[in-house]
């Protein structure tokens, strides 16, 4: 492989017999980790399903407080970042060092846009006394506790999701630097592939969060 830098690309770890074995182990390992993440978020989805059934009207009222435009925009941004991440993996597969780093940086940028929008949304919730806890206020006809339960789950689920994004962005920064230094090659770019899997997973969680949180009961009259 050609590289303009003096950094040697990563090779074969001592416990493996071949690069193929190493790559398959790495891919499987990351997927197993993602299965744990499915179950981790899954607990929250289970709580959401139960509590939405118990508190339907309160959940609809809470959902109406969310901005669909911002939510849809963020969904598009995150899907876009998945595209750039997939392209980063492609670039690593074909040995394009600088392009790999560039696509990773683009992914980071889009991720930061997403988080920026979330800050705007969270700030609005605080200002309207919709943050759960002693400061929660709900003047409307629906019982306050049931609307607060919606916001419990809204903040827990989007908060946990945002935390995963922040950690992901941190790791992508390191990844971009490593890519720039030329440690990845067509033979071993497992870390790029692995981070890609993680990032796509975070996207998938949002693909479910968006309709469940933002689009409840939007078809109600008036």
């Amino acid at each position, binding site marked *: 492989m050609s590289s303009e830098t003096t950094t040697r690309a990563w090779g074969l770890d001592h416990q493996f017999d071949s690069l193929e074995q190493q790559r398959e182990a790495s891919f499987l390992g990351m997927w197993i980790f993602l299965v744990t993440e499915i179950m981790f978020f899954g607990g929250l989805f289970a709580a959401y399903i139960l509590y939405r059934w118990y508190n339907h009207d309160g959940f609809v009222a809470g959902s109406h407080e969310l901005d669909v435009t911002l939510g849809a925009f963020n969904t598009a941004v995150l899907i876009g970042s998945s595209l750039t991440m997939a392209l980063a993996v492609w670039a690593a597969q074909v040995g394009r060092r600088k392009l790999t780093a560039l696509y990773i940086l683009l992914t980071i940028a889009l991720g930061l846009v997403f988080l920026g929008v979330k800050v705007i949304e969270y700030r609005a919730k605080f200002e309207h006394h919709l943050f759960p806890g002693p400061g929660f206020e709900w003047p409307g006809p629906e019982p306050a506790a049931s609307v607060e339960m919606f916001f419990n789950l809204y903040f827990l689920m989007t908060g946990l999701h945002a935390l995963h994004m922040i950690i992901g962005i941190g790791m992508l920064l390191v990844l971009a630097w490593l890519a720039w230094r030329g440690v990845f090659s067509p033979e071993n770019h497992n870390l790029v592939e692995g981070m890609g899997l993680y990032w*796509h997973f975070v996207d998938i969680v949002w693909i479910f969060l968006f309709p469940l949180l933002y689009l409840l009961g939007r078809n109600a009259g008036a």
Partner: protein
Amino acid sequence: MAEHVTPIRVYILVFLALMVGTAITVGVAYLHLGPLNDLVAMAIAVTKATLVVLYFMHVRHSSRLTKITVVAGFLWLAILVGLLLSDYLTRGFLSS
């Protein structure tokens, strides 16, 4: 098994499909479909997730073991939700 390189064209197509799916989800939310609203929203979400898994995450061209792993993850979530709801949904069966 040698690594499969997905053509960029495929990535772009999947991206466009995901965007269209998002638009449809938002649009349908404003229609009056009763209980179907939830179903349609989830069906679209599942379709989008499947596209991401198969193409962005390369599962389409990965080993059978990987595919089983992915299925197992979602299956286990279904077990959690399913058996959990089996308690709550059947509590009212006995008339008190």
